[in-house]
């Protein structure tokens, strides 16, 4: 699946998007965040403050317990500050 990163998370990860292939045991957004955070220092830093991480699955807001099995695109970003 495709992972997208925005704003401060994008800057910390060091890229805006990438293909990821989490193992099947990773079934929810929260588990995917934990899996990404374990990749390296940069990801650990990007995903350090779990409470401020928002996610979207296929361009719709998702929750930490949302299943990711059918997702083609998962985005991670901090709380929004538009308007």
């Amino acid at each position: 699946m495709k992972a997208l990163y925005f704003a401060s998370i994008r800057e910390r990860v060091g890229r805006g998007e990438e293909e990821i292939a989490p193992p099947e045991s990773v079934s929810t957004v929260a588990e995917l965040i934990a899996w990404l955070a374990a990749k390296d220092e940069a990801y650990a830093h990007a995903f350090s403050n779990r409470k401020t991480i928002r996610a979207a699955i296929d361009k719709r807001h998702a929750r930490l317990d949302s299943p990711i099995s059918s997702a083609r695109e998962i985005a991670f970003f901090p709380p929004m500050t538009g308007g």
Partner: protein
Amino acid sequence: MIVPKILLSAEAFDAAREEELLLAGRTDVGALVAFTGLARDEDGALSALELEHYPGMAESELSAIAQEALSRWPLQGLTVIHRFGLVRPGEKIVLVLAAARHRAEAFAAAQFLMDYLKTRAPFWKKERRADGRAGEWVAAKERDEAAAAAWEPRVSRAKSPR
């Protein structure tokens, strides 16, 4: 049926023109509320705001919020325009136009739209400092979350059957 106008723009937009388009030829509108959000320079500290957005989701989320507003109030017209990219102090970031027969509905819809937009539309602001030092990402505000949450009960009911 009202079709809301949703627009993302990399350039400055013409708010007066948008209002003209919304009202053109109409004699049934009694109230128009226009909300404009502008970039501030914070007493000269900022030279610009960089507005990052999630292409595709930004449009669809704004449309979803607009549809929710239309389902809650008897609106006659609804326009939402949001900038992305570099926005200079004094420039407009967002415009919401809500037209209705009476003012209560127009005010409520415009406020609802802004409260939801602030917390749900995927845009992020980064400050560009006038002194050249690294700017910060603008922090989300507790009060914006609270303002959006105040509209929630109706949404929860609307969402549950889906």
